[in-house]
């Protein structure tokens, strides 16, 4: 008992003041990219050719945030003069067209589907389906339940049964071997229901795009909320859900 109390005193209260206060991530963190649209076309072409995810359109100076794994190679090659990564972790979009990014993201709260706010704004239960996710997206979603993020305080919970859920939260590129399990889980969720795709894999196949062993999620289900990243920072996931369902 004494040990419990003394540990409690040392550990204290650790829950983040987000979203009431702004959080600044360490300057090394690679969040939302900024694009210099006036950069040298040769440099843009070189970055596009080197990009492991072929996520850069050098002509139009666009980045496909669905494909991007935020590895930082383009920033390094261009020494920040074409693309540089900021610490802004807000990346969620509701319209897949917005994933093709020119440096500006529209306000998520404004273009998310209003009826979801009414339905799920105060209470949202989600069934997570890892469909060949590498355990990064899964781990950084799980971490939302730790005291620092304390997801439950927002009325959002991950639940065990799809019958108790308001939607599915999908991670991974969806392997052929998980397709049926994913669709069965989705079917077991009562309507109306929401689909959230999290991480580069769920958005585009990620590193595994072009594999014959995967089936793109967007061909299977209509996705309502897209959360880019490899994996998305827990705050990216949290902010996207708060903007989409609450703001």
């Amino acid at each position, binding site marked *: 008992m004494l*040990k*419990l109390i*003394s*540990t*409690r005193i*040392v*550990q204290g209260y*650790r829950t983040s003041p987000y979203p009431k206060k702004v959080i600044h*991530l*360490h300057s*090394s*963190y*690679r969040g939302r990219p900024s694009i210099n649209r006036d950069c040298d076309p040769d440099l843009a072409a070189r970055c596009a050719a*080197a*990009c*492991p*995810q072929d996520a850069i359109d050098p002509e139009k100076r666009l980045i496909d945030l669905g494909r991007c*794994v*935020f*590895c*930082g*190679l383009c920033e*390094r090659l261009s020494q920040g003069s074409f693309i540089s990564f900021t610490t802004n972790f807000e990346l969620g979009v509701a319209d897949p067209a917005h994933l093709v990014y020119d440096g500006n993201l529209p306000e998520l709260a404004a273009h998310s589907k209003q009826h979801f706010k009414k339905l799920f704004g105060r209470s949202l239960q989600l069934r*997570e*389906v*890892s469909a*060949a*996710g*590498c*355990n*990064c997206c*899964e*781990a*950084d*979603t*799980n*971490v939302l339940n*730790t*005291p*620092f993020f304390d997801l439950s305080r927002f009325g959002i919970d*991950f639940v065990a049964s799809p019958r108790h859920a308001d939607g599915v939260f999908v991670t991974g590129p969806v*392997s*052929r*071997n*998980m*397709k*049926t*399990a994913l669709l069965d*889980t989705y079917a077991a969720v009562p309507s109306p229901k929401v689909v959230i795709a999290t991480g580069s*894999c769920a958005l585009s196949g990620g*590193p*595994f795009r*072009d*594999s*014959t*062993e*995967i089936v793109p999620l967007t061909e299977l289900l209509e996705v309502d909320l897209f959360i880019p990243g*490899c*994996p998305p*920072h827990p705050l990216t996931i949290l902010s996207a859900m708060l903007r989409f369902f609450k703001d």
Partner: protein
Amino acid sequence: MANLLPVFNGRMVPRKEIPVLDFNLFRKELLNFAADGGYIVQFFGFMEEDALKALAVLRKADQLYAVSCALPDEYPSLTSENGKFHLFEREIAEQFGARPLHHPWLKPVRYHVNQRGVEDVFGNNYSEDIPGNYEYFRVEGEQIHEVGVGPVHAGIIEPGHFRFQCIGEIVLHLEIQLGYQHRGVEKLLTSFPFKRLPVVVEGIAGDTAMANSISYAQAIEALSLCHDPDNTARTLRTAALELERLACHVGDLGALSGDVAFNPPAAYYGRLRGEFLNLLVILSGNRFGRGLIRPGGVTMPLSEKNADLVVAKIREVRPEIIQVADLLFTAHTVLSRFEACGRVSRETAMDIGLVGVAGRASGINYDARVDFPTERSGEFAPCPHIRQKGGVYSRAWVRYEEILHSLDQVEKLISAGNLDSTIIPSPVQHPAPNAFVVTVNEAWRGELSHCILTDEQGRIARYKVKDPSFHNWTGLAMALRNEQISDFPLNNKSFNLSYCGFDL
């Protein structure tokens, strides 16, 4: 032994130097080696001039050996005489359609079409969903009941299917059927352009991104003419690998506490785990270290200011971790669940070739950082272990010992300074032709190994990845025998194995 070629971790060998034995001699050599205290690091099939060959990498003490043979379409299995070959032979059967005769447990591993386009060993045509023709082991009897779990599990975890054969609460046998995470990683690593490979490798098992990236980078460095990593790169790689271990081990101790319904350490360790991921952000810009390690070095040096931040944080969290461990390991409610639960005896562990935390908890003192050191891991004294009885308690305690050991390593590596400049790696040129390399590293779960064979043009002809979970899933099944089914989550967490690292 005379027929085996001694090879070295991360050093290139021309393919023609690897002895190609007659199959019967190959089989005899491997069986003798395994019976004489040797272990199997890799045993896989590959195609050479349209013929199926097998290659084995073996280890005994601190030496690796390689040997090869032409593999017949049907052959007397090695597993029928030694369990260490069990999954390797199933994998070869699934990937290349070669049937090991009299294999006692011949079932699919991941459920996919074989690469050779020959008749499927399991009689599947893959038009049906997983598991296809898969005969689950069944115990029959009036009071026997079967419990099936998954592939989708109750928490936010990866998918897999478990079948328990129970009598009352007691588990007689647990069968673990995986494959749901299969993404075809090995095929992608031979078909994708070089620029895509580091990103695929980081995704083999995201929680092991550092160990996989290091294993890949070392293999490519051995094969190609790119410059060797400088001291900064070696230091940061070693530190990143230990930070990955720290994050996972600390998280596991919290999760183990949560699984016995003792919430304070679960909350504290859950948060402390995040501190290590945030340190990886300082090193790499990503919470899992992605983007940091590339063939030739690392992509970011560590400024003096950031190095100070890392060292200060390590010094800050060490006493917290020790205090929470004291709370966890002295709570009688915790000990009554941890003690004598899920024991894997040393004999069983040796029979199946357990590695890593689970192996050390069962008394097998093998740590690749000691026996096959890479980067700067050889500079540190081995982590001592005092509790090796093979159960949940030992697996938890080994983690705690390794946490303290890794904290010291990271502090020493980073506080020595001089990390603020490094040669940024340039893109990979074509590797050497007709070459072979094996790399071995101690990932946080245990021995991780990558093998590459290049063809005459220097392209990657075969890429083989072996995650430590490939050995250890069998250990979990053994641990559950005669345990209560309600202890499954606790045992599962005490192994905490990789689904995607296994499924590839």
